[in-house]
């Protein structure tokens, strides 16, 4: 009793301390300049490897740095108050805010100098002199004004329309390009189609090179490794040509210079519940928008306001949704604006919000198709890995049961090695290492990786399952005159199966969930797809919950299927009758 009380007290004390700590971190003063952040009390998010990281290390060395591999996770972290600042490319952050990222603003001053965005070149590319070719192409595009035009269309005016670029009829070679697919406006998904500045650049380069283009999707932390391993010929993913990256891969000439800015939390919500109410358009000139001047957003805003005044706003459905979203949090003036344009807004309350989220996650741009594709790939990888893994596992298990010591030893070591390695690491070794220079589908690599992984686990389960079958029964079978293999397949294995199927079922389901890491090797499974959608909707909760629900459903359907097999294998659950006999 005393102990329980003590424990309870400690628990309460601990939670109390956490709460206080949470409050304290929530009450930091408003950040208005970059220099303020250069303080150990502040946590800033930095993107892995890019210009942001470089600049943050150079100019904000004192702050606590937290590394993010994707920009969207960084955005979510700062909007939820887990960070005090997020250092990233200004253009992209402006787009994120335009897409509905809330509770943040961008500081006006730039962090450090501008940095080149360039095309990363794989040292292992099978295209000769790729770097020179890229540079020639860039020089030509620059000279013809194509690059400026592209920047203007995609970035400055945010039109988001891809021009018609004819693919070469008789390609000379194949060009594999890596990009991210999660960074608006450079490389992102519109529905199920990949689009953006970089994607246009990829197609244009492919056309110029007379090459058949294949685009692969990576996170920033995987893309360099992929180029290094020769999985892709080049990277067009608004990649900053940092010193660190130059050590690993080569870079072309500058495509355009990027500037780094700092995103901080805006103080709205810390005062009155609703914040300041904007009544007229002139209220927009307040502090909130001061941070946005000079980039894209002001232009976008001007365009929107102008359209509203003229009454002929031609905004996309998506953008409408986003402004709509802004409405309930930001300002009444926006409401007026959108009402003029679309007519139907005014959605408040939990269920309305849910409906909005549903719309933006599933319906807009036909994103359900993307989800369906991802789901298909998840199921494909799971099912095939399950089948192959089981066969391979059986083989492994047999290896370990042979009389030959070295073979047993090999089996044991193999199982140990695989079990002792995180599956992500194993997949990356397979993809970037073993199959690095082989032209092989990443889905196949995933299937191979998970098959081997599943084999290691299932072989152990089969082995213990087989060992639990009492030896006397095999002796009895042998004594009757069955051969060793007959004994194994007729007597031992059927009973072992009854033992190991329930455990195997659990292992298989956990493998289904583990497949969520295949995004690391450029497979667009369910999880990766939800990342892609999140990078567009800037919403954390709904897509994640949806993903969880889908995994839950898939896992349960598969469990049911395996339970069916389990019932089949277990004789006692079946009706008692003897087949092929007239009783």
């Amino acid at each position, binding site marked *: 009793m005393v102990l329980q009380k003590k424990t309870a007290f400690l628990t309460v004390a601990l939670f109390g301390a956490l709460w206080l700590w949470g409050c304290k971190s929530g009450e930091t003063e408003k950040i208005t300049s970059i220099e303020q952040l250069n303080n150990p009390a502040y946590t800033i998010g930095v993107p892995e490897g890019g210009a942001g990281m470089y600049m943050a290390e150079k100019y904000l060395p004192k702050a606590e740095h937290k590394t993010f591999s994707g920009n969207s996770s960084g955005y979510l972290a700062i909007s939820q108050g887990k960070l005090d600042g997020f250092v990233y490319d200004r253009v992209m952050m402006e787009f994120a805010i335009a897409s509905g990222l809330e509770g943040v603003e961008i500081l006006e001053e730039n962090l450090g100098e501008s940095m080149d965005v360039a095309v990363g070149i794989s040292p292992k590319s099978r295209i000769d002199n790729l770097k020179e070719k890229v540079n020639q192409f860039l020089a030509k595009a620059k000279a013809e004004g194509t690059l400026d035009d592209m920047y203007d269309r995609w970035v400055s005016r945010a039109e988001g329309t891809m021009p018609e670029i004819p693919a070469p009829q008789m390609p000379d070679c194949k060009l594999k390009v890596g990009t991210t697919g999660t960074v608006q406006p450079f490389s992102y998904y519109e529905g199920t189609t990949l689009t953006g500045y970089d994607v246009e650049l990829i197609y244009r380069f492919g056309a110029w090179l007379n090459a058949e283009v294949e685009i692969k999707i990576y996170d920033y932390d995987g893309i360099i490794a992929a180029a290094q391993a020769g999985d892709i010929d080049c990277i067009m993913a608004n990649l900053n040509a940092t010193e660190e990256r130059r050590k690993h891969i080569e870079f072309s000439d500058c495509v355009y210079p990027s500037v780094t800015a700092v995103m901080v939390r805006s103080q709205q919500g810390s005062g009155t519940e609703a914040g300041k109410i904007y009544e007229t358009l002139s209220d927009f000139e307040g502090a909130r928008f001061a941070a946005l001047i000079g980039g894209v957003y002001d232009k976008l805003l001007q365009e929107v306001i102008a359209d509203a005044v003229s009454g002929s706003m031609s905004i996309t459905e998506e953008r409408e949704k986003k402004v709509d979203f802004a409405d309930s949090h930001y300002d009444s003036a926006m409401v007026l604006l959108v009402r003029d344009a679309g007519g139907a807004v005014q959605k408040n309350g939990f269920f309305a919000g849910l409906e909005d989220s549903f719309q933006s996650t599933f319906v807009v741009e036909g994103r359900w198709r993307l989800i369906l594709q991802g789901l298909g790939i998840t199921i494909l990888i799971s099912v095939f890995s399950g089948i192959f893994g089981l066969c391979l596992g059986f083989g492994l298990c047999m290896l370990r049961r042979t009389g030959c010591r070295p073979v047993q030893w090999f089996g044991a070591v193999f199982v140990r090695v695989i079990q002792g390695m995180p599956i992500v690491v194993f997949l990356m070794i397979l993809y970037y290492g073993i199959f690095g220079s082989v032209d092989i589908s990443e889905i196949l690599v995933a299937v191979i990786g998970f098959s081997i992984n599943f084999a290691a686990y299932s072989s152990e389960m089969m082995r213990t399952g087989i060992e639990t079958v*009492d030896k*006397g*029964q095999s*002796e*009895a*079978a*042998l*004594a*009757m*005159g*069955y*051969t060793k293999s*007959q004994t194994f397949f*007729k*007597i031992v294995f*059927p*009973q072992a199966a*009854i033992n190991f199927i329930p455990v195997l079922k659990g292992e298989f389901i956990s493998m289904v969930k583990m497949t969520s890491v295949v995004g690391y090797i450029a497979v667009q499974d369910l999880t990766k797809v939800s990342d892609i959608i999140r990078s567009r909707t800037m919403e954390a909760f709904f897509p994640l919950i949806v993903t969880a629900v889908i995994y839950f459903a898939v896992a349960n359907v598969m469990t049911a299927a395996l339970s069916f097999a389990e019932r089949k294998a277990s*004789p*006692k659950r079946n009706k*008692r*009758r*003897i*087949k*092929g*006999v*007239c*009783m």
Partner: protein
Amino acid sequence: MADKYESQSIISIRHLRKEYPNVTPLRDVSVEIKKGEVVSVIGPSGTGKSTLLRCINLLERPTKGVITVDGVIATDKKCKVNLVRKKMGMVFQSFNLFAHKTIIENIMMGQVDLLGRSRQEAYDRGMELLRTIGLGDKALAYPDELSGGQKQRAAIARTVAMEPEIILFDEPTSALDPTMVGEVLSVIRSLAMQGMTMMIVTHEMKFARDVSTRIFYMDQGEIYEDGTPEQIFEHPKRERTRIFIRQLKVLHVEKISRDFDFPAFTTQLEEFGRRQQLSQRQIYAMQLAAEEVLMQKLLPAAGEAGDMDISLDAEYSERENLAQMRFSYGGPSFHPFGSGEDLSGRVIKGMSKETEHMFSNGVNHFIISI
């Protein structure tokens, strides 16, 4: 003549030896088993009885020796062991029914897979067997739904269904509740009456005596004594057989000399008596007998006659509630109390049921029954 003998013997074992890294359960076994014989193998635990059986059907590979089954040399490397095994059924101590099959399927499986019978034939034969052993209504039960006795009967039916030339029983009743032993033994007994050749490792002495035509007493890794039940149970020729058959408990001391630590031995004797749950009077009588014979008679005599190589067995037969002190010693024939009644002689006579002195092959035996 030799041919005839060969054709009669179903199993012939020559110099069979089985070694494990630490123990050698079978040292040297040579024996012939003829058709129609019911051989019971008895003997203390750990003397290689089960190992012998398991070697015969090659569940254990013999280290040395030749086993011939029905004219086929089973220990030959090229021999198809599974074909040899088809001729020999085996019934195990732990039943070893296939847990994932019903009883009738257990009996059908081998017939269908190995004898090539149709499922219907196998089923009919199986049901017939089950009915004769009284398990007709358990055909569709699974092994774990049966009692131990029922399981063992089913296992016997499974073996019989394979129509073997000989059935090896490896302690078929040892894992059973005493109440279930009878039902299993009666099934084995009826098989014996049908003329089935059998080899039974058992601890059921009465059963072995009733049902067998031949008994092997196994001890120390060999067939120590081989004979008819009458021979083995009534007139065992050899010492260990006698001890085993009479279920004797023995305390053995040898090389007793003048330096013998008698007080320590007295304590040993007392412990032995306690362990065998002898009465205090019996223990006292044993101690007294040892003291009078050794201290008063044999050791003084040994002093005169030189080394007499005295040894002593204190024996207790639980079955007969009889304790015996068996002294043996060398030298000329010498009855400790032969030279008239002295005090010791009267003491011994007073507390013993009888005394006996024998002299053979230069060894004296003096036995005091208490």
